[in-house]
């Protein structure tokens, strides 16, 4: 029997409607052509599909299709945004701002830029994971070029007030980059309200296929960035490489569904998330990581006192598919840097579970998860010579 899947923030299954749409652009009977080969019918069919998808992605962000650049996913989008902007604006400033709790693909870009001589202000959120826009304002200088803040944190689900930050950066002429990989289809995303200049999205976090993402690049005011991938000059020279039509169609369809479901899906999932949290609270010493008030519906991050994190995850692995912190750093045995930045002590940060719910999560899944976690925590605490010892 398959474990109950509560790891939708790591990746989602492809929606059957998305898969069906993608399948139309793979075989000889379908639109397999190279979208760059507009001189023949096969190429034109593919190109039309790519442009339709560009419109679908733009609609999900309330953007113009001309502002959408295809990438291989959010990691590449983040790299293109951060490195592309700092390349383009080198000499016009030397200061950057981001959060300690950003995704690794943002954190590592900024670390690399530090090594190249850029000065980075690493903002620390409060214990709920939120950043006060005042702290962004305080960090802005005349030398600041770029600010990166993620819309929804991948480990805690905490939602940042991007619009408040965007108001500050736009007024100062500083570019704002938003990693929205966990936000697409989970919260409303409007680039005009956020006043964001660059927005990264990924298909596979939103019932689309792996290996495709997009970067929104604002045209008014124009955000300049230098290409990081050179070759055939695709995507207006910003990202060379043959466009994967079926993947792009998949992202477009996933965005269309995300927009359609935005008014009903988050509410249903939030109710399940609350049921999960209520069930887990029947145990002593369980702690929610992040914010109750500002949390995307699909994520619940909980630490369990009195148990070892590795033993907890191993013990649950045959019943539950969940993550310990970020799936991207699961190979390392370190506790989550995100939870540590929120002030969680090391053992509690390590003994944490990120539950993430999705389109096919049911009440039965939640009740099974609560029962499995309770049984495992109880077993490990009974095993422990220090549980309950003052």
């Amino acid at each position, binding site marked *: 029997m398959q474990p109950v899947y509560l790891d939708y923030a790591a990746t989602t299954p492809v929606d059957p409607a998305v898969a069906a749409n993608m399948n139309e652009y793979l075989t000889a009977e379908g639109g397999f052509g190279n979208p760059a080969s507009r001189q023949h019918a096969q190429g034109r069919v593919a190109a039309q599909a790519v442009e339709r998808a560009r419109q679908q992605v733009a609609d999900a962000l309330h953007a113009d299709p001309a502002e959408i650049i295809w990438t291989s996913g959010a990691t590449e989008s983040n790299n293109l945004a951060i490195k592309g902007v700092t390349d383009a604006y080198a000499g016009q400033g030397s200061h950057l701002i981001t959060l300690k709790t950003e995704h690794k693909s943002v954190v590592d870009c900024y670390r690399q830029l530090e090594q190249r001589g850029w000065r980075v202000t690493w903002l620390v959120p409060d214990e709920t994971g939120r950043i006060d826009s005042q702290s962004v304002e305080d960090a802005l200088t005349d030398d600041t070029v770029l600010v990166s803040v993620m819309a929804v944190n991948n480990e805690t689900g905490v939602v940042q007030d991007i619009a408040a930050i965007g108001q500050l950066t736009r007024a100062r002429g500083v570019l704002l980059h938003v990693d929205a990989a966990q936000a697409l289809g989970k919260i409303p995303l409007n680039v005009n309200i956020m006043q964001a200049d660059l927005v990264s999205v990924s298909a596979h976090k939103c019932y689309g296929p792996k290996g495709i993402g997009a970067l929104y690049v604002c045209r008014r005011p124009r955000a300049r960035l230098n290409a990081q991938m050179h070759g055939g000059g695709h995507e207006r020279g910003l990202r060379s490489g043959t466009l994967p039509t079926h993947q792009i169609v998949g992202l477009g369809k996933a965005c269309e569904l995300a927009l359609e479901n935005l008014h009903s899906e988050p509410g249903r999932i939030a109710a399940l998330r609350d049921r999960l949290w209520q069930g887990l609270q029947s145990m002593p010493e369980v702690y929610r990581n992040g914010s109750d008030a500002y949390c995307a519906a699909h994520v619940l991050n909980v630490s369990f006192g*009195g148990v*070892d*994190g*590795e*033993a907890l995850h*191993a*013990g649950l*692995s*045959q019943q539950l598919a969940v993550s310990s912190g970020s799936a991207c750093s699961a190979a390392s*045995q*370190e*506790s989550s840097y995100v939870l540590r930045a929120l002030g969680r002590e*090391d*053992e509690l940060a*390590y003994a944490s579970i990120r539950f993430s719910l999705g389109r096919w999560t049911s009440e039965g899944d939640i009740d099974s998860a609560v029962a499995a976690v309770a049984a495992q925590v109880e*077993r490990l605490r*009974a*095993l*422990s*010579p*220090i*549980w309950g010892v003052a």
Partner: protein
Amino acid sequence: MNHPDYSPEVWRYFNDASRVGHLSEEAVSAGRISVRAHTHGSRAVMVIRAQLSAGRVVDCRFQVYGCVSAIACGAWLAQWLIDKGLDEAKTLRASDIEAALQLAPIKRHCALLAEDALGMLLVEWGQNQAADAANSMVEATG
């Protein structure tokens, strides 16, 4: 069912609850030490409790706070000690535990923790024997 991250032996003992907990009577508390293993910043604590009769272990229980391998080492040691006399128990080394459980090299500290716990148990056992207790209980914490 096995787990891809652990040897079958580690996984089996991690899930074996047959010797978890306390002895039926109140154990003698002696030689308590607490070893802090420096893995991902968390502690690993092991308690071994043994019931002796005529110089041999007739019952043995364990408790562990720690990772999967630490729990498996405690469970394995509690099982291994059954029916052992003092001289035989003295021969066990961490390397024997590593081999028996096919521990990953990165988890060697778990076997050392078990060896430490056994060492404390043996000290208590020796003192106990000297006091000529025919039926007694010893406990050690590693």
